[in-house]
């Protein structure tokens, strides 16, 4: 029993972290059909930006905000300079964004060195909660809280505001959206920036327990992609459920079948796609 509850908790908290990456990535996919291999780099660079802020004495919160803003600007620059011209050209998108991912990886190596770093978490999140015989690290509870807040905020914006209606219209049919006077270009840019910023927040949050190290970008990227494709591109609900599924499968797979753990993660995903190629909540 303890094993299952602890596993459930760890899986959900990893899923929460994945959601921070995949939520934005899914909206970017749904809206612009851009295959963005740089998304993992936003996650990595976000962690490094926060580190720089905190090395200079800045508090954790400032680190999170700075990371989100700086990386959102990086995303906007990349999108404006290259990606917006590559609509519909999957190969071009993959190669261009891969190029950026390599360049960012190398820049991070130059600027922050190759040693693994840890982001110091605020003292209120240090320690564990005891419930009976179970232990819950407070920081992981915090991560779940952050992801839940982001999910609710995104949902409110998407479903309850005029801006959200414009975003949904852009996902559904960009041409019609443009026809009724929605500035699709600006909305797309905004969503791209938000996705990049959220990935950066994910990087800072993750830096508190797995650290920030070279290679983290390509480690997390396939997971974020799998969440998006299984949940369905452009679907917030899909991103939430996909994140939880991947988080849980990864966690229990590693615990129960250590040798086959990635197989137990990716094979069910592939099976879902075989039945529903557009993902659980995606539309073609």
């Amino acid at each position: 029993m303890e094993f299952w509850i602890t596993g459930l908790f760890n899986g959900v908290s990893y899923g929460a972290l994945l959601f921070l990456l995949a939520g934005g990535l899914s909206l970017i996919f749904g809206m612009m059909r851009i295959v963005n291999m740089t998304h993992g780099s936003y996650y990595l660079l976000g962690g490094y930006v926060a580190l720089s802020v905190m090395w200079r004495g800045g508090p954790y919160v400032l680190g999170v905000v700075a990371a989100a803003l700086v990386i959102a600007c990086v995303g906007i620059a990349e999108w404006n300079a290259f990606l917006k011209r590559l609509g519909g050209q999957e190969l071009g998108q993959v190669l261009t964004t891969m190029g950026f991912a390599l360049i960012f990886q190398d820049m991070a190596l130059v600027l922050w060195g190759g040693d693994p770093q840890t982001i110091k978490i605020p003292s209120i999140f240090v320690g564990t909660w005891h419930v009976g015989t179970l232990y819950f690290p407070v920081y992981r509870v915090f991560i779940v809280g952050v992801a839940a807040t982001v999910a609710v905020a995104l949902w409110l914006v998407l479903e309850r505001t005029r801006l959200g209606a414009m975003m949904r219209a852009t996902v559904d049919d960009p041409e019609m959206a443009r026809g009724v006077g929605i500035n699709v270009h600006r909305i797309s840019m905004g969503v791209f920036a938000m996705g990049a910023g959220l990935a950066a927040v994910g990087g800072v949050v993750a830096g508190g327990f797995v650290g920030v190290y070279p290679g983290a970008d390509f480690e997390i990227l396939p997971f974020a992609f799998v969440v998006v494709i299984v949940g369905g591109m452009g679907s917030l609900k899909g991103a939430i459920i996909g994140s939880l599924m991947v988080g849980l499968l990864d966690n229990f797979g590693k615990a129960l079948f250590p040798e086959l753990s990635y197989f137990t993660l990716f094979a069910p995903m592939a099976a879902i796609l075989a039945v529903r190629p557009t993902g659980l909540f995606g539309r073609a």
Partner: protein
Amino acid sequence: MGAWVAPVLLLVLAAVPPFTSSYVLSLVTQALIYAIVAMSLDLILGYTGLASLGHAAYFGLGAYAVGILTTRYGAGFWTTLLVGVLLAAAVAAVFGLVALRATGVYFLMITLALGMVAWGLAHRWVSLTQGDNGISGVPRPVLGFGLSLARAVPFYYFALIGFLLAFVFLRVVVRSPFGQALIGIRESESRMRTLGYHVWLHKYLGFVIAGAVGGFAGVLWACYQGFVSPGELELTTSVKILLMVALGGRGTLLGPALGALLIALLENLVSVYTHRWLLILGAVYIGTIVYAPEGILGAVRQWRMKGDRAWARG
């Protein structure tokens, strides 16, 4: 492309080895093996119009077949070759069933997930694959007839023969009615369906053939390196193979081979002169799409067409 290009290239490739250093030779050997896997990807990418993000899986499967069979069971070259190619083909046959239900971005993403399945096994199934440590001590093949491939020059010719076999085989495939139908599917799937072609079956067979040839390249790679690791199946390897095809020119066979040569040169030479070779590789990725979206051969073709038109006007 003039008819003289291929024979001249072949002559150069066959005649040069005795006159070069073993460093250059090993570099070209590497390029030849890359070229095989790049050409195999081009069968589905350039000729059929399906961008796969998981092609490294077949390359890796071929390589692991050699690594495991030689170091554990002392298998000979011909056994490993057969198993490697058949294994890659069999896995492609399963993956193809799943992946070909989708097109475009979805195909790209599903092949990515499938590629990760193969990578995950190599990475975590430690008792079979030795995980991240990789399998070292893979011997150079012994072909019988008293030939030793341990030295650079004989192995170079061995790889060259492998390259030629793959090239001729793929050329026959793309020139055949089957290959022409693939091109038709790339141009217009609905038209081919109306004409009575079984579109799915064509794509599927193309996918499996590409996987099998990719596995063949992996077999040679393991023999060349003497070492196999999960890096062979990584997402970044899949993207690198895509780059080779895009850089040289999609929809041709010489193009991907040229791209493979350039990437092999870049990887080896640039890292000698600077630590910043990732930066340069990244710039090549972006530069290819910005300046030569149809690849080098595509740019050459366009330039020649312009020349022809100017001549016609003249």
